[in-house]
């Protein structure tokens, strides 16, 4: 059985830390959004109610919003179909192959979706692998459907399915095993999964689906590459075309901001429910899938691995052998790689240290903690273009040029975007640790700071490294948050990959993407080993 719920009450210091968390969210997300509305960075005025109304009611925009919603719905459905069985398998498997398979599965999530779409085009494009193997007519056929809505669904589903997988696995691990076993006594596996397992995992699955939905809504680069006009690209267009209408961009973005707000609230509720149910039941990680269910899950797992690996392998092949590629091509992207590593390391270090200090109180103060972290959650789910514009409104002022002109602005933006991820990972690690350890420390009367230094920190060292690696990967994959204001000479690898798309030889573009793949893969492998070690230490 799990340990009893924690009983001690943190004092003033803990409340101060919660206040600091709220202030962080305020500075990183709340203030920029407020300034974007009050004082947008443009010669034109702020978004007026009239412009908002015309944006929402214009038939053209409605049509594009319809396209975006349709794409988001399809991607969400595909991610559920693949991610839920994968997640259940992951939650209950004891196979040694799980770790490498999960690394492969997570790889597309940890890369910019643009790179995944580019990788798939190297297979399905007119001159892609399919055309080389099957002839020109095959290339015509594959590119015909890939360059369109189907391609967007494919690329984004491959990139985002791991979100549903992780949420499903997280909830499936914590579900009440006795209820599943009771179901198995009376019904077959299929019925038990449908009537017992899925309803119990529904909050997690729903949360994953919501997050996928909102991320697809905000995606610009993949639809642009695959020639699909979506609502988010209109918002981006208002910032990029000659008329430069940030006020109008904001008006157009409002429906997306509202959806993001709803999603953030939904995720908060799911999280609050999860916190209440934590630690009171027998975990279900000892369950096993039966033959049929296992075969189905393995089919999904292998298919998903092939969908992740095959296009990446083709991209790497192009990088090594294609025109402009090889060692020279890889060397040419060295500067962008070094920028990306710098941004990633800076962001990850700040977020890890911050989360290490603050996440404990956040975890313990369930509802209050969830509420104070809401601004940071909003920073994660907001369309990247809107958040970027808000940062320009806030920091591109004469008095803050010391920040805006430096690499620090990129790190600041990435911190705002991924602070919530850091909090979640640290909390996850804390939830893995038996409460008794913390309670014992508390009962000895040790002060909060010393308890944190002598108990929390050593216990969570692995998880803090894991937090660092997770936020590092998120930071180096980011494309759209920083494209509007990255400092001169400070282009990241994803940005370089995108700007090279214009007329660069295929090998050179692929080389930039390949560097991204290798750095991400190496980080994921280290993270997987650490996670494995942590969970084995706590649940041997």
């Amino acid at each position, binding site marked *: 059985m799990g340990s009893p719920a924690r009983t001690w009450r943190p004092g003033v210091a803990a409340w101060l830390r919660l206040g600091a968390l709220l202030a962080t969210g305020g500075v990183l997300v709340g203030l920029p959004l407020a300034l974007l509305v009050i004082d947008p960075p443009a010669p034109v005025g702020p978004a007026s109610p009239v412009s908002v109304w015309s944006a929402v009611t214009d038939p053209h925009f409605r049509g594009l919003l319809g396209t975006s919603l349709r794409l988001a719905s399809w991607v969400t459905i595909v991610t559920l179909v693949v991610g839920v069985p994968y997640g259940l398998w992951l939650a209950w498997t004891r196979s040694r192959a799980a770790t490498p398979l999960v690394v492969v599965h997570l790889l597309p999530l940890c890369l910019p979706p643009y790179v995944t779409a580019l990788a798939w085009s190297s297979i399905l494009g007119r001159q892609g692998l399919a055309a080389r193997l099957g002839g020109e007519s095959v290339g015509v056929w594959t590119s015909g459907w890939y360059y369109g809505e189907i391609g967007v669904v494919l690329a984004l589903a491959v990139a985002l399915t791991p979100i549903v997988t992780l949420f499903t696995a997280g909830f499936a691990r914590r579900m009440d095993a006795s209820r599943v076993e009771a179901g198995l006594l009376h019904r077959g596996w299929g019925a038990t999964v449908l009537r017992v397992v899925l309803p119990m995992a529904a909050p997690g699955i729903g949360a994953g689906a919501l997050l996928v939905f909102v991320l697809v809504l905000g995606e610009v680069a993949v639809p642009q590459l695959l020639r699909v006009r979506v609502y988010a690209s209109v918002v981006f267009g208002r910032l*990029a075309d000659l008329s430069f209408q940030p006020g109008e961009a904001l008006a157009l973005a409002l429906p997306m901001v509202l959806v993001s707000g709803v999603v953030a609230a939904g995720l908060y509720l799911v999280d609050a429910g999860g916190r209440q149910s934590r630690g009171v039941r027998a975990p279900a990680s000892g369950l096993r899938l039966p033959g049929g269910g296992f075969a189905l899950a393995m089919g999904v797992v292998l298919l998903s691995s092939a969908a992740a690996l095959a296009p990446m392998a083709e991209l790497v092949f192009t990088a090594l052998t294609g025109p402009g590629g090889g060692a020279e091509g890889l060397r040419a992207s060295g500067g962008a790689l070094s920028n990306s590593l710098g941004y990633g390391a800076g962001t990850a270090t700040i977020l890890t240290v911050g989360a290490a200090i603050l996440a404990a109180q956040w975890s313990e103060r369930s509802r209050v903690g969830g509420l104070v972290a809401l601004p940071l959650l909003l920073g994660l789910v907001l369309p990247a273009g809107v958040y970027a514009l808000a940062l320009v409104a806030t920091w591109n*002022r004469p008095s803050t040029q010391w920040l805006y002109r430096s690499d*620090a602005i990129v790190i600041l933006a990435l911190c705002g975007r991924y602070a919530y991820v850091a909090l979640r990972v640290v909390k996850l690690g804390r939830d893995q640790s038996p409460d008794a350890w913390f309670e014992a420390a508390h009962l000895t009367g040790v002060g909060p700071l010393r308890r944190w230094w002598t108990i929390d920190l050593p216990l969570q060292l692995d998880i803090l490294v894991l937090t660092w690696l997770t936020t590092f990967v998120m930071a180096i994959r980011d494309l759209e948050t920083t494209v509007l204001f990255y400092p001169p000479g400070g282009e990241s690898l994803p940005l370089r990959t995108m700007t090279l798309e214009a*007329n660069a030889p295929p090998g050179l573009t692929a080389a930039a993407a390949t560097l991204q793949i290798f750095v991400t893969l190496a980080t994921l492998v280290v993270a997987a080993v650490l996670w494995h070690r942590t969970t084995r230490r706590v649940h041997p």
Partner: protein
Amino acid sequence: MIGVLGFALVAAAVCDCRCGRSRSEVVVYTSVDQVFSEPVLKGFEHKTGIRVRVVYDTEETKSTGILNRLLAERKSPQADVFWSGDPVRSQVLVRRGLVRRYISAAARDIPAQFRAADGAWVGFSARGRVLLVNSKKVSPAEQPRSIRDLIDSRWRGRTAIANPAFGTTTMHMAALFSRWGSRRAAAFMAALHSNGVKIATSNGEVKRLVVSGEVAWGLTDTDDAAVAVKSGAPVRVVYPDQDGMGTLMMPTTAVIIKGGPNPSHAKRLIDYLVSHEVEQRLAFAPCAQVPLRQSVKRPAHVPDPSSLRKMSVDYGRVARVMEQLQPYLRDWSARRAGAKPPVISPRAASAR
């Protein structure tokens, strides 16, 4: 977290600023494709020892994304030089008073129509707007010869142009409005829709559509066309309207940004960009740009500008028209019914 964040960011910014100051550097924003501009700027670094920090544009927002960034930063400019892939974006900056005038001695032999007498801007190494034709789909006998062939019913649904809200296609449409006047040009634009012309996200995308045979031909820039030819794709390049109004030529242009952090290095960079060396380098590069000076060596596949019939264009007027035209072009791209262009009277022969 806020304390950690604040401390770390201040430290990073201070360190970054100090490191920046200790080096001799110049900041460039460019809408010229990275793959072509990067070697030129590296050449400047190598020659002068001055570090170049660059912001490149993405293919889809070509020219305009960078321009908007310059406009947004006008209260505290970050850039020293804007190297534009076309002449009119520089004109927009000139018109808004964001440019510092500088007459480069190195640009004295550039023809007068490609530079401002007062040093506000200077052009060099041009691109043209050409028809890229898939030779498997179109025989030499039937190949298009004018941009007006885009609205010829025999090509219905078989041609492509880039989204005119962005990039050089905006300039091209503005040049047509400037030349033809709004009535005739708007009729042309409407006919593009009714003739099923595909709207690609960029000129590079037009190239891909033609190369892959998804369309028979498209309107694009010479650099995109040259890359397609060099890759061995089955394509031909046609300079349109050689027996009519001529081909639109677009020199790349460079301006110094007023209030930029490194004005003296900006001048040195301008001197370098307009040099014979850079024009020759860009002519022999995969972009195959056309040198404006006849004395500069060029490979055989790059035409002599004097042998081409060029569209007569007043870049300053085109820039003004382009700003007026933007809302219409957006509506046109969105296929919004009843989109109305601004009233622009035709001006042909008198234009420079």
